[in-house]
């Protein structure tokens, strides 16, 4: 098992904020809109450095999405910032009609996604956003795994013409991807080559997949670990090749089982190369209040559950 050096501990939302500020300096067409969550989204630096290109819309997310669509007319590249819940479910029809169907070059940047939002509880812990967003034609869906990758993704999506949903989170997480790693939309990252089982993870669960891989290695199980940061379009080539090599796949994500990374990977493999699969994800339930760590343990979004699911799919592989 390859060793991963932890170079820091930061929240992914800070990766977004820092990436946005850097974009402000390099791309004069980048503008930012925020619905009364400038501090939470780490958009303060952009606001201070580029006040003319920062638009405070108040607690009015529907208007924000419509305005972002309109701002593209004339060449601006709008980045909207609010919590993931208010970036998707609250404004689904606005995104659907004014952004996705109208093919507008809007970047919907969504923080505090998933259970790791913590104590605020289920009203704010959206676990359906990836599903909602990837169902929309024209939409690209990205869920980076650490500070460096989120910063790189933020910068990369400005160069991509078309609507993007960029999802990140609240808590501090280990930084383990290289700061200079190029972010390629739609390209999976092979973290560890293995032969016995494939673990495909996205977002905060990528680090848990690495921890699981280390423990599995101690038990003699050689896991292939893939970081899928772009859920749509999925890197089908990498997923299929790995499934062919290992013959068993576990996916891991901070999202509902329905509609997320696991569902997307299983559709791809059902069509191309079916293998035993299992899913580390929230099983058709809402979240609740608690610390991020408590919640991830309670809902099984951790290395221990990845290991348990790996054992299950490997048993099925033997039977097959």
């Amino acid at each position, binding site marked *: 098992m390859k060793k991963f050096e932890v170079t820091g501990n930061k929240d992914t939302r800070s990766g977004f904020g820092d990436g946005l500020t850097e974009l402000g300096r390099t791309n004069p067409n980048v*503008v930012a809109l925020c619905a009364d969550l400038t501090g939470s989204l780490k958009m303060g630096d952009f606001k201070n450095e580029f006040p003319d290109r920062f638009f405070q819309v108040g607690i009015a997310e529907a208007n924000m999405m419509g305005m972002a*669509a309109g701002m593209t*007319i*004339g060449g*601006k590249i709008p980045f909207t910032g609010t919590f993931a819940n208010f970036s998707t479910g609250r404004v689904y029809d606005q995104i659907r009609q004014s952004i996705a*169907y109208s093919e507008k070059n809007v970047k919907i940047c969504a923080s505090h996604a998933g259970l790791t939002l913590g104590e605020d509880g289920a009203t704010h812990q959206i676990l359906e956003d990836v599903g909602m967003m990837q169902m929309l034609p024209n939409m690209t869906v990205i869920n980076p795994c650490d500070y460096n990758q989120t910063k790189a993704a933020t910068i990369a999506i400005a160069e991509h013409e078309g609507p993007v949903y960029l999802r990140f989170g609240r808590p501090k997480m280990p930084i383990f991807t290289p700061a200079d790693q190029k972010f390629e939309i739609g390209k999976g990252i092979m973290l560890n080559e293995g032969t016995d089982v494939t673990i495909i993870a996205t977002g905060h669960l990528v680090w848990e997949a690495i921890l699981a891989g280390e423990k599995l290695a101690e038990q003699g199980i050689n896991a292939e670990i893939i970081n899928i940061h772009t859920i749509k379009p999925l890197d089908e080539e990498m997923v299929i090749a790995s499934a062919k090599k290992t013959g068993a796949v576990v996916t891991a994500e901070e999202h509902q089982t329905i509609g997320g990374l696991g569902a997307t990977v299983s559709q791809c493999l059902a069509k191309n190369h079916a293998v035993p699969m299992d899913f580390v994800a929230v099983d058709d339930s809402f979240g609740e209040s608690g610390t991020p760590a408590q919640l991830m343990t309670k809902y099984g979004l951790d290395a221990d559950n990845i290991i348990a699911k790996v054992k299950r799919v490997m048993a099925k592989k033997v039977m097959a």
Partner: protein
Amino acid sequence: MTSLELSKVASQVRRDIVRMVHAVNSGHPGGSLGCTDFLVNLYFKQMNINPAEWDMDGKNEDLFFLSNGHISPVWYSVLARKGYFQVNELATFRKINTRLQGHPATEEGLEGIRVASGSLGQGLSVALGAAETKKLNGDKSIIYTLHGDGELQEGQVWEAAMYAAANKIDNVISTVDYNGQQIDGSLEQVLAMGDLRAKWEAFGWDVREMDGHNMDEISSTLEKAKADCGNGKPIMLIMTTSMGKGVDFMEGTHKWHGIAPNDEQLADALGQLEETLGDY
């Protein structure tokens, strides 16, 4: 153009509308006929536009956003008659593979359309975004919008109304088609809106009123509004219209909101509308 010349264009547009909806036995003639005089005046007399060299960004030209997208027949006809696309394309309205979708869409690149609309209440927000971009680009052009009166029941409209006044968006001239009708009946019966003028004024807008079927008054109101852009306030024109205007049996009722005339009704309607520019 004189008011008489504009009215002749409007008569042809009304013929286009009833023929388009009749041909596919679907579409929304009532609101389309009610907004015909306004849209003809806007496109043929007021807006600084370049239909022959249309592009999505529309830099240094005026923009129009139709928020109540269901009145697509009138918009398509006005755009075609103004030269955005061939008039004979109106015959494809709502048919399979058409660029003239039931509600306006951008997917197939129909010239003149900059955002999809149909799901109500979104157009003002889009217009405000475009208005902010115009300001960032140092572009002095004007953004026009049109909304249904029933559409104002959507909450997003008021989010946008607040933003526009708070941020002094003074390059937008919005118009509401105040025909007093919506699908389930009159506005009063369905969800009474109270004093529309007072509502918009309370939200910080510069509100004016006009008769949407008096060409002279539409011209003078729009010209005055254009002159008053840049004064630190968004402008709202409350335009009194009669749904179905120009076809007597469709006038003043919500019943023709979303149904098409049959063969006899079409003949009756066309008998009331002079063919001035040649049918498509």
